């Protein structure tokens, strides 16, 4: 199974990136996860020509070829970071590769609430007609206190949270298989 993991921030240091790296290792026997960044994507300004820039085309190809997408998002000001919404604007406005693509949302934040508001927004955004992704329903994965969650080898040390992630990921794999029929 091939998955794309999108780091929802352009920050140099991000526990959401760490979380994806952990999943990449940890679920290596179940899926090949490729991590993609939103860092170098040009600023979306609704150009009159609906032409995707090079970076968007490459990412589109990867998403199209993949079985599903994991988006891990921080929470900035009760919503998702602008660089992530910027990516989603390009995808919606140009290539639309997320149509009917299984998506799993995770989020890590320093505080207790663990990105719950940002994830709610992200679900609404992904439900917009131009994106229309198939977001894994029913479940949420919120990793609060994310700075303390990993050891220096990027291993998720909180065993409860690690187990929860295992179950969540298993659900996602199931979901993908069902969607494929």
């Amino acid at each position: 199974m091939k998955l794309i993991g999108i780091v929802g921030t352009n920050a140099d240091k991000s526990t959401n990136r760490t979380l994806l790296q952990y999943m990449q290792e940890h679920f290596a026997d179940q899926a090949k996860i490729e991590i993609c960044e939103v860092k170098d994507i040009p600023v979306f300004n609704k150009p009159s020509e609906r032409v995707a820039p090079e970076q968007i085309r490459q990412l589109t190809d990867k998403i199209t070829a993949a079985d599903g997408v994991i988006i891990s998002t921080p929470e900035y000001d009760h919503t998702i970071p602008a660089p992530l919404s910027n990516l989603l604007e390009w995808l919606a406005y140009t290539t639309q590769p997320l149509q009917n693509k299984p998506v799993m949302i995770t989020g890590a934040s320093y505080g207790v609430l663990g990105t719950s508001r940002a994830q709610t927004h992200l679900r609404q955004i992904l439900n917009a007609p131009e994106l229309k992704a198939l977001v894994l329903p029913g479940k949420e994965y919120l990793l609060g206190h994310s700075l303390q969650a990993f050891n220096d080898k990027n291993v998720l040390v909180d065993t409860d949270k690690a187990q929860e992630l295992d179950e969540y990921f298993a659900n996602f794999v199931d979901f993908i298989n069902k969607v494929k029929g």
Partner: protein
Amino acid sequence: MKILGIIGTNSENSPTRLLMQFIKKQYDEKAEIELVEIKDVPMFNESKDLSDKEPFISIRKKIEAADGIIIGTSEHNRSIPSSLNSFLEWSSFSVHPFDGKPVMLVGTSITRQGSASAQLHLRQILDAPGVNAIVLPGNEFLLGDAKHAFDNDGNIEAQRTVDFLGTCFNNFLRFVKVADVLQTPDEVRFEPGDYKVTTKGHNGELPMVVSFSEDRIEDIEIDTTGETQGIADTVFERIPQAIIAGQTLNIDAVSGASVTSNGVVDGVAQAVKLAGVDPNILKKRPKPSADTVTTPLEYKTDVVVVGGGGAGLTAAVNVLQAGKQVMVVEKFPAVGGNTIRTGGPMNAADPKWQNTFAALPGEKETLEEILNMDEAEIDAEYLADFQELKKQIKAYIDSDGKYLFDSALWHRIQTYLGGKRTDLKGNEIHGQYDLVKVLTDHALESVKWLESIGVEFDPDEVSMPVGAKWRRGHKPLKNQGYAYISALQDFVNQNGGKILTDTPVKHILFENNKVTGIVGLNADNRKVIIHAKAVILASGGFGANTKMVQKYNTYWSKVDDNLATSNSPAITGDGIRLGQSVGADLVGMGFTQMMPVSDPETGELFTGLQVPPANFVMVNQQGKRFVDEYESRDVLTQAAIDNGSLFYLIADDEIKKTAYNTTQESIDEQVKAGTLYRADTLADLAKQLDIKPAVFEETIAKYNSYVDAGKDAEFGKEVFDLKVQKAPFYATPRKPAMHHTMGGLKIDTKTHVLDTDGVIIENLYAAGEVAGGIHAGNRLGGNSLSDIFTYGRIAGKTAVKETCEK
């Protein structure tokens, strides 16, 4: 009103921009509306802070300057455009321009729902703590199908839509005003005092004392004797400093010691609560800026003077005249202290001048009383002067002098006799001889010196200030106390002296048993450290600090908690405590002077109907007279205290005409405000005062009969003028108010401050009401001014001579 419109999209062809332009055009007359674009602001990146760079910085300033903000948003994928999102992230990261700003949302979309979902997201975003805007509730303006909403001139076509937008906009303007009220910080008023609480240390609970004045946390002392040294030391130093500097409980923990840090903050919060204030108000205040906490303002000068009243400014001028540098540190926004409130005349015997005036009836009799006094009543150190004075008086009377008599000796003996009192414990006090001698020998020199720096005195009038007992008052031509302060202040400013206002002095710097400067706190809560060769304390007395009066009082049988005062609120005994912190001795602290006939609320003299004492008719709260109204201030004060402090001055329509400083208008206003009572009959007046009419009528009838007889069988009043007989009748509520504090720091004739062993505290001087020992149990009217200008000069000169010229 200034409104900033933010075009919340970077796309070239956006109906949101058209909408914002329409709003600007349409409501131009109702508010000053400016539009800004965010399209050149780069993508937010936590790792690369550009919030102090253009173009963001200009927009930020516009937001800060605006009274209200309108954000126009488009809807992208059910949310706001990433360009707006990014802009708001910049506005929540290291700067927070939206904090507390009223914001109105409008939005467009090309579909029918018109940005409903984006606006909901935007509301949540603006509500996030880092942004913290105040968003207008309701009034959801959504422009759906936006591509077709505008005509060719950029106007919205549908009138209903325009009307609704107008309603929303009006509501917003009103909302901005309300939000403004929300922004005014909560007022706090602490119950002043020291509160004991505990805080968590590593080895258990640590006792801590937090001191409050009415509007500030003044001091936090943590008893760390039970604590091991280490990181916690930094906490115990830094956290209290930050709390005091910022007057806030919104304090960052010292890293690595968050438990102890929070413990200190919690402890102070407890104390705040005990002092009657909700600690959450202080928690919501901004953090102290790094500046205020870490970098004090530091100065170096020759002499630093604490307090910019008459004594302090005089000392400062003398330092400048000796060619040295001086800084005056003043607690209040303006200099002047109590000195600027004075009636103006200062006592100084100037026989040559006084002899040109004719004697008044009664003056000779006063002098004869001295000749008849029993010398056994005179304290030994004054006896020689007393005998010499008697010779002078005898010569004057023998020569049948018709002119006004005076001499420095007469001034000295009057100051001494006037100040001699015994307190409730039987302790006798009188002015310290050498201090009184210097005062009375040099007062005239002080008058001449004031003239030399530009104070003009009236040569045609020799006045007797209230309570002065003799006509030796030199009266400035200009307005009262202002005449002195303006001349002194001008001299300091024009001759290179520096005056720091709004900077209460909090500590004296003391190293190796020497005073080396002071520490103050300025209006920005920034520490001000001044290193100096000498410090002169001239911060006045403690008349506005009732707690302190109560603490030391030994003279009055009772000092009310709600005692009013004639003093400036700054006069809280700070200099006395500063002196004590370096070991100074105090003298005569139990003796204070009250103005018996003052406004119960404000301590002012000239409210209500303030008439000459011959027309005083004083009745207590039972409607009875209780004292000879012609008595001296302290007898009247004690009599009032014995009668529950509050009493009434009764007047009729004729007595009313003898009142000072009032007009019929002002009288009517006070009656309306309930601070002065008026009635057509005595019985009605009594009812208003909650007094039995029969008792009151009888009191007045008796008083009137004494006026007729010229004699008061009950209380011995001897000087009468008018009867109380013509309606309407008036009652002016009065109470004694704190006026002057005679006690203070112990000084010698060179103004050195002495410690409890009588040893000079090196480099520390004191002059004015902050010092004690001169006026003892009662100060003569007009003698303070002689005191502050004489000892102020000595302090300035001595400080220079001893610390700058050796």
